[in-house]
Structures are given as structure tokens and as C-alpha cells.
């Protein structure tokens, strides 16, 4: 495919290779949504921004969500200009973790952050970010974790349990260097203070902003949403993320994080009443936010308590207006907590929607039943389906009694157990 070919060429050298290729194939590396570089440019300047990589499918610029396993399931990462919507779990225990991983990834890569919350002060949220795992320090502790992990090595060809080789491989846990795309974080430690102070971040705390006299455009959104939209638009415009400001040539990504959007703390009543007066507020907000993101170098994560929304139609509309939707379902308090199938895990993770950007198809992963667990330090996502095959080849055969006698294998206990045959005889 042309996109893949130019992908390889850019990895080797930016500049002339891309410029010549771009004459014939303008599509592959247009950073979608960037107003400054239109599709009529003489050559797309592929500037490499830290923490981003082009997607192999269509050259889309991707950023990491902070969890390499989730990146893999989403087809490489979160595309710049899109929204990742996380449907919170029931007691809001694990979704703040994903939120913090996203922000921590931004700090490690040097991206600008915009944190918006109605519940917690953004400064406090940033203090609680998990620390990144660095190269040498924790390598010893990880070796023992990896050893306990039953991941088969890829170069050993399996002879008997050959079906396990066909299982999709989840991420290999290991130490990290800062030039990698996705990083691992230690949930038990805090991000060092100097990293937070060195980063550029903006906070939006609703109780503070709601009383200030910012000029509000007339709109039918709730005032909290209107103020937040204006705040985001100000930051994007002033720091030059949308390329419209000729003085500011921004070559960085803006990571926006909005916590608990749609909850009553934002002034919205969709979680309280079924047909409230503001039933279109949230969807309008998401639409305008989508418009802002598509024309700027930013990526957004939103956590939303969808289990509280009374009107199911709104959830469907919100899903349509977001790009990636991931749902978390924790086992706490539910009957699944005692289910032996789920005993190793803390909850299920559902990838409800993946966008088709610049393409007719999307990279949907085949694995649908995924579960997550929060170990002492790490948050991992695994597939829980045990290998179960109804194919003739892996049926279990017993050797019948008369054959046992004939071949006098009564004494050999090996043949009394069921075994898996490798092929049809």
C-alpha cells in the first residue's frame, strides 16, 4: 500500500523523500485537521513531535493513551484531533486511573496539558499522577514479574500446545526509555515534583471559573460547558495549536482531560432527570469540542458517568459524537466478584467504538472479551477467553480399553490420561 511504503521512507529520512512522494500521493502524510498545512501544500512538512507516531494504516498522527495495552487495542494509539470517551465504572475507581495515565504520558513526553474538573482542583490531580518506570531502577523487580508471567516466547515453537501460539499476544511488560511511544507507570508511586513543575499545564476548576466574569457568548449550553469551551478555545488560539496564530509556531500536542463530564457537578441534569431542560447541552458541547479538536493539534480524554444517565438515547448520541468509546465495568459489588472465571481480574473493559478516520475501515481488534487488573504497580489488560476449540483436531481421545489391553499399556499411566491429538488420523 502506498501509505505503508511512504511510512517506511519517512522513518528513514524526513524531508526530500516525503516531498517527492507527496507530489503524487498527497494523502499519506497530511496531518489531518491541521489548518495551517492544507492539502494543497507543496510538500507536507512532517515534523516529528515527541510522543507521536504515524499510524501504519493511513499515516494518521497518533499519541499514546498512557497504557500500551490500550494503544494496541485501539489500533496504535489515539489519533490527534479525536476524543477518547471513557465510560466510568460504577464506583469511579478505575477510570480516574486511566485519566491519570493519559496526563502522565503527556508530562513524560513534554506535551501541554489542560485539565478540567468540577470536583477536584487540577493541581491536586497532577500531584497524584503515577510515576513513570525508568530504565535501570526497577528492572530487577520487573524481571521477577515477567518470570511469573506465563507468556510464551515467540521463538520457541510449541509442539504439543501449538494452539497457544495462535493466541493474540498482549503487551510484554518491561522497562522503558523515554524515547518510546508508550510508557509504563508505577501506580504506587507519585510523579516526581520536578517533572510536574517543568511541564506546561492549564487547569480549569469549575467552582473558581463559574464566578468569574468571563464574557459569555449566548448559547444554549449550561454555563459550565460554555465557560469550558471558551477556556479551551482560548488556550488553543493563544498557544497556537491550531496554526492560525502566525507568531506562535506550535509544534506540540495539547492534551485535554475532562473529568466526570455530564455529572451534576457541571450543572447538567441528565443524570438526575430523564427529560430535563438541558438534554441537548452535553451533545452540543461534544459537537463543538469535536470541531475545536479537529482543527488543532490536540487529543482529548473525557470520563463520563454513563451509568447514571437516565435517558438511554443520550448515551447513544454521545457515542456517535465521540470517536473512541471505552467502557469500564468493575466487579466490585457485583455477583461477578465471586465468579471463578474472573477471580484474577478486577473488571471488564469494553471497546465500544473505534473511529474510521480517513479510511473506510478501522483497525478493530479481534479480541472482544477483555479484562483488566490492577496489580500492585501495573494496570494490565488481558484477554480472558480460555482456549476452547471445537475443531476435530483438538478433541480429546481416550484409548479404549481393549486397545490398552492389546498393547499392554495398563502399567503405563501415560496412556490412561486423555491427550490431545495433533492432527486427524
Amino acid at each position, binding site marked *: 500500500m502506498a501509505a505503508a511504503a511512504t511510512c517506511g521512507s519517512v522513518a528513514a529520512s524526513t524531508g526530500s523523500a516525503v516531498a517527492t512522494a507527496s507530489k503524487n500521493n498527497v494523502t499519506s502524510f497530511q496531518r489531518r485537521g491541521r489548518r495551517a498545512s492544507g492539502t494543497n501544500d507543496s510538500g507536507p512538512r512532517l515534523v516529528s513531535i515527541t510522543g507521536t507516531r504515524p499510524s501504519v494504516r493511513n499515516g494518521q498522527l497518533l499519541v499514546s493513551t498512557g497504557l500500551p495495552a490500550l494503544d494496541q487495542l485501539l489500533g496504535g494509539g489515539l489519533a490527534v484531533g479525536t476524543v477518547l470517551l471513557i465510560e466510568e465504572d460504577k464506583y469511579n475507581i478505575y477510570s480516574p486511573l486511566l485519566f491519570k495515565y493519559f496526563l502522565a504520558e503527556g508530562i513524560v513526553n513534554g506535551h501541554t496539558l489542560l485539565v478540567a474538573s468540577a470536583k477536584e482542583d487540577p493541581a491536586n490531580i497532577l500531584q497524584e499522577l503515577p510515576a513513570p518506570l525508568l530504565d535501570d531502577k526497577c528492572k530487577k523487580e520487573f524481571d521477577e514479574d515477567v518470570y511469573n508471567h506465563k507468556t510464551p516466547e515467540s521463538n520457541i515453537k510449541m509442539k504439543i500446545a501449538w494452539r497457544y501460539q495462535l493466541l493474540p499476544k498482549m503487551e510484554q511488560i518491561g522497562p522503558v526509555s523515554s524515547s518510546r511511544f508508550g510508557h509504563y507507570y508505577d501506580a504506587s508511586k507519585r510523579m516526581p515534583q520536578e517533572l510536574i513543575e517543568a511541564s506546561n499545564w492549564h487547569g480549569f476548576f469549575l467552582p473558581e471559573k463559574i464566578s468569574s466574569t468571563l464574557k459569555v457568548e449566548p448559547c*444554549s449550553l449550561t454555563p459550565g460547558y460554555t465557560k469550558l469551551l471558551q477556556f479551551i478555545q482560548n488556550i488553543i488560539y493563544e498557544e497556537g495549536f491550531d496554526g492560525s496564530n502566525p507568531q506562535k509556531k506550535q509544534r506540540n500536542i495539547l492534551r485535554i482531560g475532562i473529568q466526570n463530564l455530564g455529572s451534576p457537578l457541571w450543572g447538567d441534569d441528565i443524570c438526575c432527570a430523564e427529560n430535563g431542560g438541558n438534554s441537548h447541552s452535553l451533545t452540543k458541547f461534544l459537537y463543538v469540542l469535536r470541531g475545536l479538536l479537529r482543527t488543532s493539534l490536540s487529543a482529548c480524554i473525557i470520563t463520563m458517568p454513563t451509568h447514571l444517565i437516565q435517558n438511554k*438515547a443520550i448515551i447513544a448520541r454521545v457515542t456517535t459524537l465521540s470517536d473512541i468509546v471505552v467502557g469500564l465495568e468493575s466487579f466490585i459489588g457485583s455477583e461477578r466478584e465471586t465468579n471463578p472465571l474472573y477471580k484474577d481480574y478486577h473488571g471488564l473493559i469494553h471497546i465500544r467504538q473505534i473511529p474510521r478516520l480517513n479510511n473506510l475501515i478501522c483497525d478493530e481488534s479481534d479480541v472482544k472479551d477483555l479484562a483488566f487488573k490492577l496489580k500492585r504497580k501495573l494496570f494490565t489488560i488481558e484477554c480472558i477467553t480460555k482456549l476452547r476449540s471445537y475443531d476435530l483436531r483438538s478433541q480429546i481421545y481416550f484409548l479404549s480399553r481393549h486397545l490398552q489391553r492389546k498393547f499392554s499399556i495398563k502399567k503405563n499411566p501415560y496412556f490412561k490420561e486423555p491427550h490431545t491429538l495433533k492432527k486427524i488420523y
Partner: protein
Amino acid sequence: MARRPGTGYLGVVVRRGSTRGLDWRLGPAESGLLGHLAYSQRLTVRSRTERNWLGPSPSWAPQADLFSPRSSHSGGKLTLLCDAKTDGSFLVHHFLSFYLKANCKVCFVALIQSFSHYSIVGQKLGVSLTMARERGQLVFLEGLKSAVDVVFQAQKEPHPLQFLREANAGNLKPLFEFVREALKPIDSGEARWTYPVLLVDDLSVLLSLGMGAVAVLDFIHYCRATVCWELKGNMVVLVHDSGDAEDEENDILLNGLSHQSHLILRAEGLATGFCRDVHGQLRILWRRPSQPTVHRDQSFTYQYKIQDKSVSFFAKGMSPAVL
């Protein structure tokens, strides 16, 4: 059902040995999305002539009149695209590229994605949206960008998305004015474009933005009166089917449009869930809303798999992965 000589009855592509024929203009760019139905023995093709028909049009016979720009067609048609539990945007991309290749004047109201998204996919399907826009063939309303402009800055002249600034549910008159202005025939006398087409990507978004179902139905009614009746053009709209999400407004909109439309293309996910080789099922329903239902409405069902630059269709259960 009116049948034109030279086209198959069911419109299924019959691959024969010879490729001779005046209508055979197959090239890699020509074989568009829906012009590539897989051969299936179950579907009997009672074709009158030997002519093969593999072209950029969706090759179902009764609509060959409709989709082929060379033939004269009386009055425009409204095509309703509907998707349930899956993404039906591949149909929008197909129709956009199809009408642009057929040299029609297209007004595209794109509310859900940006211009570059459509242009990149259009390039895969063989049309260049930027060039079409430059030469005046395509009038593109980019909903996302316009919404940002409308919400953050006060506009002097009426904007098509003016309703975003209003507190209570208004009407879509400015949007209709925009469409009418875009598709009105220019008085220069030369007929550069065959007939006008209005494409709306995602009417359900208008419901999310605060419009009532009745306002949206009014808008479609006005557009039909202008585009289909007055200008003899076509209309293609996409609506999501919310299924069991109990979205009453959406159901009203969908039912209202289903009764008005001539052709309904319904992309559904498979009832059994996700499948890597079959992405969904497409139900095609022809209707004659203006005439009394003497004939029963024709309906077909195909399963499809979307590939990088095309979509392959096959009969139910005849996926190449299964056979």
C-alpha cells in the same frame, strides 16, 4: 418494473468471458464500491441480453435509469441511508464519489467529519474533492468548522448553522437557504453539470444539536420540494437507527423519512455479533411513495465486507471466507 435493455433483471453482476460491449469501461478507478458484487450461483440472473454491466454505478437494474446520468430521468429521488449497530459511512463515501464522477453538481452538508477525511477517502475511491470544489462542482459545508465559527464569534450575515446560537429550538431555514443557493442553476446558459444532488451526512446529528424531529422533517421536505421536484435532482441522506436505545425523536425522523424515500439502504451489523470477514449486512428496499402500492416493494439483502478501497458484496452465507 421498468426494465432497460442491456441490464440484468436483478442487477447482479454476471461475469462472463467476453468483455466486449459499449458499456464496459472498467478500469481500476471505475470499479467503485458497489460495482463489485461477487458471483453467486444461488442468485439466478435472468438477464435479457448478453451485455455485461460492471461500471461505477451500483448495478441494480431498476435504478440504472436513476443512476445513469445519460438517461433522462423524471423527477428526483430521495435515497435514505440508514445504519443500525454499525457504521454506514461507506455508503456516503460511495455516493459522493459516484455523483462526482457522474458530473453532477453536488452540495454536501457534512456535519460529522472534516473535509480532509472525505477528501482522503475520496482519493482512494478515485475523486479529488479539492479539485471538485475549486471548479465549482462541489459545494461543501463543513459542519464542524462552521459550528466553531458560529459559537465563538457573532456572525453578521445569517449562517447556515445559526440555530447553534439560539436558546430554544429554532428551525433550519438558514440551512435550507444555503442549500438552495448552492444548487440553483447558474444563468450562464451552459449546462456544465448534469443534475444537482444534495448529500447530507448524518441528520441524526441535527437532533443532538437541539433540533426537533419535526424541524428536521420540515427541512427535508423543503429540500425535496426544491431539489427533487423543482431542480429534478437527487437527495441522499444518512440517518442512524438507534435500535433499542429508545430515541423517540430519531425514530420519528427515521419513520418519516422511510415513507418519503424511493430507495432505502440499510446497513446492519450481523445479528450474531462481530465477524472479521463479514462486516455487516445491507438491505436494499425500493419504494414508490407517490404511486399506490400495486407492486410489492422490492427488497434484497446482501452481506458485505469493506476493504481498503472497495466493498465486496455477496449473498448471505456465501462469504469467501466460509466457502
